[in-house]
């Protein structure tokens, strides 16, 4: 019963979705202020999703129906699960299980994979261009991302999120070490690509391939994809907070403090998004496999020698 409450209300589905709407609003509002615009009202993301839910779902000819409709739901479920696991391990450091770090990394890749499958299932040339870009991007950022996330593991000698948090509570947050800072920067850039934000939004590049991977999705299916995006905007920065500046939530103040750190990471992502043009897919892959992977290797070596 308690677990059901955890997964459906707090910190699971309801809480995560609410936070997702809020962070999407934050993203749009900060973007608008950077661009000298006013920005949307607080409830705009909710209106958007509700409006999409009421629209007709069009399934393109030749698309496998079941796959086409199920994929976004799988993506949404895994994003919510990641967020829940992160919150739970901060609420109670002992609540996780050994190896939940690995599960989170796997689950974080699921929405991208669902998007790839969805784009190929939609039988559209523009979607397949978008899908193939997403594959290349995924191959590009996944290796440095895992390597960056390894740094806290090496430091804390554990692959359990709760123990990584406990380690940071006893000997200072990861961001206070050199290797931690390097790994945080790498992970932040990888998250930027994971979330499909500029400069890594080539999978949906509106002005090139007209929303690319999303092109054939409409109505409620698109709404679920949007919701997945909102929740990924909660789940992935939260994972960074847990790994690099984690602290156990013992009181309301502690909760607000974590929220503040989370908002900081989101604002950082939004600022990167608004001060860069979109790069090309070959440039992105070269960037992740070249300098970023090299930096990740350096960070791991630094962590091994204890810096």
């Amino acid at each position, binding site marked *: 019963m308690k677990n059901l409450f955890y997964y459906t209300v707090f910190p699971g589905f309801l809480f995560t979705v609410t936070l997702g709407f809020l962070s999407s609003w934050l993203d749009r509002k900060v973007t608008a202020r950077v661009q000298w615009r006013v920005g949307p009202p607080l409830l705009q993301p909710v209106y958007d999703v509700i409006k999409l839910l009421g629209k007709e779902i069009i399934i393109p000819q030749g698309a496998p129906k079941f796959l086409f409709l199920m994929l976004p739901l799988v993506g949404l479920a895994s994003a919510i699960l990641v967020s829940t696991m992160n919150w739970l391990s901060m609420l109670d450091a002992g609540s996780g299980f050994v190896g939940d770090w690995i599960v989170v990394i796997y689950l974080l890749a699921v929405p991208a994979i669902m998007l790839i499958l969805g784009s190929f299932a939609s039988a559209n040339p523009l979607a397949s261009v978008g899908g193939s870009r997403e594959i290349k991007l995924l191959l590009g950022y996944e290796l440095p991302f895992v390597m960056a996330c390894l740094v806290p593991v090496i430091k804390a000698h554990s692959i359990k999120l709760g123990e990584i948090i406990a380690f940071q509570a006893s000997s200072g947050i990861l961001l206070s070490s050199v290797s931690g800072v390097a790994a945080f920067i790498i992970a932040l850039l990888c998250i930027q690509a994971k979330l499909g934000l500029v400069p890594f939004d080539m999978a949906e590049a509106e002005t090139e391939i007209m929303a690319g991977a999303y092109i054939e999705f409409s109505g409620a299916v698109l709404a679920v994809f949007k919701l997945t995006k909102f929740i990924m905007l909660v789940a992935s920065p939260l994972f960074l907070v847990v790994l690099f500046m984690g602290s156990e939530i013992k009181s309301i103040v502690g909760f607000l403090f974590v929220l503040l750190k989370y908002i900081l990471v989101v604002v950082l992502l939004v600022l990167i998004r608004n001060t860069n*043009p979109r790069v090309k897919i070959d440039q992105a892959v070269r960037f992740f496999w070249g300098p970023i992977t090299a930096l990740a290797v350096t960070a791991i070596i630094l962590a091994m020698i204890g810096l």
Partner: protein
Amino acid sequence: MSHRVIVPIGPYHPLQEEPEFFKLYVEGEKVVDIDIVIGYMHRGIEKLSESKHFDQVSFLVERICGICSNSHPFAYVNAVEDLARISVPERALFIRTIIAELERLHSHLLWLGLAGHFIGYNTVWMWSWKYREPVLDILELITGNRQHYAMMTVGGVRRDIRKEDIPEIKKMTHDLIPVLNMFKGAVMDDPVIHARTRKVGILTKEEAIDYCVVGPTARASGIPIDIRKDDPYGAYDRIDWKIITQEEGDIFAKLVVRVLEMYESIRIIEQCLDKMPEGPIDADVKEIPQGEGIGHIEAPRGECFHYVRSDGTNSPIRHKIRAPSYMNVASNKVAAVGGTISDAAITLAAVDPCYCCTERTAVIDKDSDKKIMNGWDLVRLSQEKTVRLKKGLSK
């Protein structure tokens, strides 16, 4: 051997909100060939012009395009003045030059913003359009309108620049210099923009000559053509300014040319305001004699050409217009092929295409002198297609 597919950019596409159609033949991400289809817009401006009298035509051609809403009337009045051998008062020439340069400023800022948007840099888009507002404010101050200034008239200009407005105009144009410096710093020194625009969509000097490109597109390929210098009109021969050229021919060169041209425009406006003589602003033309005349001016996108023939009545019997994009769009055939889809998107936009300026064609059969297509034919074709599609669906 990879699979060749068509990636359509157009007829309706978020890249350029105008009816144009680029068929990109791609293998993977690489563009191997391109088909350029234009001609979706036929408004019959040239024919309409024959039914208006000479004064009204300047209002008509103003409505060819919202961005070049001064270039077309300017070229048109030049053509009529060439036809009727009218000498325009000095003050009017200076005012015309000021309006033309203000238009260039706002057009280049508009392009800069759009180019930012096309490569996903929406902040540049919004900032550039924010700083375009003061230019429109100046135009409103002088002419009363933000667009469609209605300043050009055969023999002069319609409105004078008031003496008490000049300090304000000077201040507002001068305030644009720090803005341009900021853009120069933010756009021209950004490594990611370099990565996106350098060595991309290259149009070499030879290709530029072969395709007869005009305006900033040609100047970015190292061809120093500029009607303002080559065949001076307005007051351009009375002031000091220089042609901006770049040698590389890539997108970055086109960007640099446009940004630097804005500095020149500000210089020209400031000099014009200083040197502007007192006097009448209109030659008060009464009769347009029989004959023909041409007028061409340097619009923000390149040479805008107007030809007018008169038989002595009060309306032209032939009016031919050629807008710069007509020459520039075709050059994408060489510039966009060989790059990726991402490159093609910005390459297609780098010539600053303007389709509403370009298109006013009607197809005529030369033997029977009959129009093969008119507006009504297109409606009929579209209705037939709908019927055909509906039949296909019900099968």
